């Protein structure tokens, strides 16, 4: 029950966040994804020093796990914690872009 409530709260938070990214911000984030994520994961996101981040791979993993990986980084790897630079709604937007739930 409690878990269900949390889930609902979480979904509501995501829905609220989705409304928060302005068009202008989205374009900044699109550029970040292409070039700065792309410097390790490839411009086409098919991998580099970091692993490939193709849409099918991203859809196969829970969104919250992706949010956590971006926000907190992956210790022991070269993936840094982007939560120091990006707001939660920015990260949510990036996850939806990776899963191709939104288009640039």
């Amino acid at each position, binding site marked *: 029950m409690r878990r269900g409530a949390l889930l609902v709260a979480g979904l509501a938070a995501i829905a609220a966040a989705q409304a928060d990214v302005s068009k202008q911000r989205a374009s900044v984030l699109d550029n970040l994804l*292409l070039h700065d994520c*792309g410097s390790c994961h*490839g*411009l086409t996101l098919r*991998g*580099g*020093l970091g692993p490939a981040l193709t849409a099918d791979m991203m859809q196969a993993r829970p969104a919250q796990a992706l949010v956590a990986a971006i926000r907190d980084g992956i210790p*022991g790897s070269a993936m*840094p*914690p982007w939560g120091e630079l990006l707001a939660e709604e920015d990260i949510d937007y990036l996850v939806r872009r990776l899963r191709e739930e939104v288009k640039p």
Partner: protein
Amino acid sequence: MRNLLVILLLLGLAACASTRGTGDLGVVIERASGAVMVVTTTDPARLSGVEGLGDLSHASVVFSRDQRFAYVFGRDGGLTKIDLLNSSIERRVMQSGNSIGGAISQDGRLVAVSNYTPGGVKVFDAETLELIADIPATPLPSGKRSKVVGLVDAPGQRFVFSLFDSDEIWVADFRNRAQPQIRKYLNIGRQPYDGLITPDGRYYIAGLFGEDGLALLDLWQLDRGVKRILDGYGRGEQKLPVYKMPHLEGWAVAGDHAFLPAVGRHEVLVVDRRDWREVGRIPVHGQPVFVMARPDQRQVWVNFAHPRNDTVQVIDVHTLKLVRTLTPGPAVMHMEFTPRGEHVWISVRDGDRVAVYDTESFQRVAQMPARRPSGIFFAARAQRIGL
């Protein structure tokens, strides 16, 4: 009539390949467009463009020793040989799924590419781009092979490179190109992320991402093995996040010192070249990415990782102090000095331009539009060991 046609044809060819040297030419990578600009450092100006080179994130370039051809190593495994005079693609092969850089051999006849997928090194005939040798990297428990980084050429017709996932340095001797000899150094330190060779071709240094320190191999004394230098620099300090992997290039060696980017610290490490001990650290604006000496070695220029990447700083080698901070614009990716160092070209990715600065007055002397430019490479690299 027929003679006239022949004459016209010859005139056409002559117009194509104009009589011009290439020593003052270079290329600028336009990463998102799969294109390069051909530029001249004399004017300075853009001359022409070449399209159709694939995914050029992290692309790098080496030059044929006659400086006519540029070999472009693309992220998607594409290896493209560009004719600088005709601005055309001479040859192109897709040699792997995912690659990170390359080198050209001492004699100019071999081009080597370091690959992530499948991990290893492939060596090609520089003229024809035919495959000469395939050197698979060490297999990992995952079934994949280690990614290969920091590939450089070394005297003695050798290539030296590091294995990111298996903590190794390999030396491949191609004096007999049909039967390369490979010497492997194991446990050199965790996660070598890039390598450099000193301008004299003697020392290979791999930067370590997984621990504080660097691995040094003296190519004059291979039997002595790999030595750790700057072991535990900054031990006990909290590391800062690294939003872009630093790069090493051989020309960060200046005077008695080598200048290296610290990892996870906003510092440039200064090392004594005689004994490879740390002699100082210079606090800088952000996480250093490229730390490059001007050709006369009087200055060292530094650019920085996201998000502090609109800035470039200049260190005076004589006093080891910062002498200038410039803000060329959003997302400075790379810097390249003209062969004798009077100018530096700086790519400003998110400003869609390349800016040229005078290195004495620090004034901007030229600027040209470019589509999301990243690496800048001048043909003078052809005559330098390790570039």
